[in-house]
């Protein structure tokens, strides 16, 4: 599950973004996905609070991280890019490699 932990973080950007996008589409139950850009507001696209919890759990499973309490706020899951930033930060913390991305 955590097979990509050994790959340098900087190289993972695009891959992480596309994996996040796939999880957002799968768990977000949102409409109008053709228009969904990396910086689109997911709540505007219909991401509900309940679905954002499902998304959080799926992200934790997929990336082997755990969102700490300080990150459990709406803006963490407000866009694919915001989620990406959170994942990079958490993975950086997990590997002691803060700022590598």
């Amino acid at each position, binding site marked *: 599950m955590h097979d990509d932990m050994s790959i340098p973080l900087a190289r993972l950007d695009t891959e992480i973004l596309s994996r996040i996008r796939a999880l957002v589409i799968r768990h977000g139950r949102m409409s109008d996905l053709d228009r969904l850009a990396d910086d689109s507001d997911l709540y505007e696209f219909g991401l509900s*609070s309940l679905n954002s919890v499902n998304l959080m*759990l799926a992200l934790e*499973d997929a990336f082997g991280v755990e969102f700490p309490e300080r990150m459990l*706020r709406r*803006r963490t899951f407000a866009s694919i890019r915001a989620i990406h930033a959170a994942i990079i930060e958490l993975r950086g913390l997990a590997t002691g490699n803060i700022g590598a991305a």
Partner: protein
Amino acid sequence: MIRAVTFNGCFGWLHEAEGADGVVICPPWGYEALCTHRALRALAMRLAASGHPTLRFDPPGTGDSLGADTDLDRVGAWLRGINTAVDELHHRAGVSRVTIIGLRLGALLAAQAASERGGVERLVLLAAPVTGAAHVRELQAFARLSGEASEPAGTDASDAQSLTGFIMTADTRRALSGLDLRRLPAASVRHLLLMPRGEASQSELRLASELRLGSDITTRPLAGYTALMQDALTSKVPYEDFRAIAEWIGPATSRPPRYLAPQAAAMLAGDDFVERSITIMGTARLSGIFCEPSKSPAQRLLVVLLNTGANRRIGYGRIWVSFARHLARLGYPSLRLDIAGIGDSEDRTEGGCLEHNDASPRDVRAALDWAEASGYPRTASVGVCSGAHLAFQSVLADSRPALQFLVNLDHFHCQEDAVVPAPAQRRNVRSTSAYLDRLGTLSTWCRLIKGEVDITTVGCGLYHRYSGRVSARARALLSPNSDPGRRVRQDLRRLAERGVKTVIAYGAEDPGLDEFTRNHGHGGRRLRRIPRTRCAILPEIDHNISTETARAWLFRLLEQALDNTLQMMKRAPMRPAISLDRRVNTHQPGLLARNTPNA
């Protein structure tokens, strides 16, 4: 036949059937229970239709049962509640074997109870959390992401958290953290159906290989979970999953069960109140709970507590249960009612939306018929958000209410161009004045600079709020008669002449306050000349009245309004109770006997 039943302080429903294999359904906790109540009712109906007598119930301190989430030893009480429910089904329906079905926390507790009890034939775990600790974390995450942070609940219980309106004490969180499905003893139940959320949690998907609980384990994803676990207004019944559960349980055995005679009255008695389940014929067969004071003579004014959105009659955070029992302490009887299609009431034949439905005032009118026949000719209608809209519409059409108490009203009348935001938007975008106030504080600017303010959501919310209103405002200027504010003031004047007291209350940051201010001025100043009408803007209350502090403020205001109304009623002679709008008087006579079963 569906019968209201009570046992050991719990309220429940027995769906009667002819088979000898019974089913007990254990609901989730808190907001998840509010979302899924209607679906579990559908599951019980499905199983009863297959011949299995099925009991669903509110565990101690939840729903319509006695007690509160702040009581001690909640987890112990919930486990004992499941045990009692199984015994009750054996006793009441004469079944020889029982299947226990649990959803979310109900599943975790059902597994624990089944393993402690032993001898359970079948167990069905729907979207079961692997551990109590994981479930609590998820509930806390949801509370924070929904904007109703897991703040201190404002109760005496130390470290209690308000989790999306429902209170969980530190004691309960600690007790739950001791629960782990993987640690339950091997083969405590004979057959186990495990239905994990297919898409959410890897730990739940791995559970099948880690569980030792059942002698034989069948695994099948709960495909409809995500659509099921939505706000009560949008939650979808997972019929396909329910069909699979019924098939797994199998056909009913032919031996007919021996039913005990129905309880004379499905009633529960607290220290200061007695509650009875009642059935009323409105646009469909309606279900309600009549709460009467037991220590003091009842006031002659009955409080009718109405549904908000599609939330069952207990209300968000169980507000109407605590209000009803507090009111009884003060001598006021109350009726918390499920209108057609919501909670435990039947669907309306003609269908239609559950919120802002033109037919709903007819259900309220049927409830007032019942109240009048029960000795309460004068009533007070109380509602929050869409419930306030329903209160206003039903008071317009009936002369019996002496008070309307309207909280965080979205709009008085439905208009073609009315902007009714989705529940999520209502919760997340505050009133414009709230944002303007915040601009004057240093901390807001610091948060803006740090990028901690969700500008897009706020901006879009405000844009949607205003764009739909421009045309309405323009029309109002060109044609004063179409001004919705003017129409409402005419209505309120008419009601005041009839002797109706009106209290309109808004949270200072409520999204509905913008429309109210636009139509009636700041603080409702254009309503000041209307007799018997009072507006209150309360900084302490949020849209869903989700904290204990908010509930305390609102209750104080309601108590004051009821006392004033009683004094008014003593001064003024009572008007005859007649329908003001004969068009709504087309349904069957309102009263059925108390405690008649829902068929």
